């Protein structure tokens, strides 16, 4: 709408306290959004699951207390949906991105393990995954879903 925008892009922001109990509400929001913009049912389920996994991690591993809060930023454009989940970090977990923690998590994953399947699910079911430390001392996890996965433009 604004003249400076070269191509159509819109942004939605959601902030909730760091509690698992808010995840179903976030999922309900995303589900309605994704349905409207025309992703298929399977894709919709994948996006709901990924949202759950990333938000669960941000709450469990990236929040000191419920009051820390997590933030979700959805960016929509004609070809894709991007979801960014931002947390403020938790002491003692600050180094999870460095030192190959992500590689370690990925390498150690095994079907019979109780933990460590979240990031794997996110990586497998999204079209693109990027993880960065952010300026608040926490983590930004960004996933992208192309609108037509078979013919990404």
């Amino acid at each position, binding site marked *: 709408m604004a003249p400076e925008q070269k191509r159509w892009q819109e942004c939605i922001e959601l902030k909730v306290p760091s509690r698992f109990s808010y995840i*179903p509400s976030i999922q309900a929001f995303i589900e309605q959004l994704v349905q409207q913009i025309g992703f298929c049912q*399977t894709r919709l*389920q994948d996006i709901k699951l990924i949202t759950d996994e990333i938000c669960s991690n941000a709450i469990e591993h990236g929040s000191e207390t419920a009051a820390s809060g997590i933030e979700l930023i959805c960016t929509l454009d004609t070809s894709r949906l991007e979801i960014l989940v931002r947390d403020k970090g938790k002491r003692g977990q600050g180094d999870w991105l460095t030192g190959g923690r992500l590689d370690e998590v990925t390498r150690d994953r*095994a*079907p*019979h393990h109780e933990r460590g*399947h979240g990031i794997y*699910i996110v990586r*497998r079911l999204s079209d693109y995954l990027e993880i960065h430390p952010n300026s608040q001392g926490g983590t930004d996890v960004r996933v992208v879903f192309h609108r037509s996965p078979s013919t990404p433009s």
Partner: protein
Amino acid sequence: MAQESMTTRESADVKIVDVNEDLGSYVAADLRKTLDDLASQKTQKIVVNLSQIQHINSTAIGALVGTAKKLRQKDGDLKVYGLADNIRRTFDLVGASSVIESYNSESSALAAF
């Protein structure tokens, strides 16, 4: 919440857990507690009824896998039944299908012990 997220009943020496709400992290914490309570008693056999739900996340699958391993150490097991397509996809994706036995019906899950 209006409804309990899960309830437990029994059939002979098997405890059956009926899950009534989608297994995200919030409800998964209930599941973990329910299973831990059962497994720390003398229960050896647990069947989890997933037929009422459409979603499961990795934390909930972890709780199922962990309990299955614990029960196997005392010659028991945990089995699941009634997996919706979407839940089966998630089980397959993380490899839980090769660790946990799943059945179409309660009777077949019970008969498999």
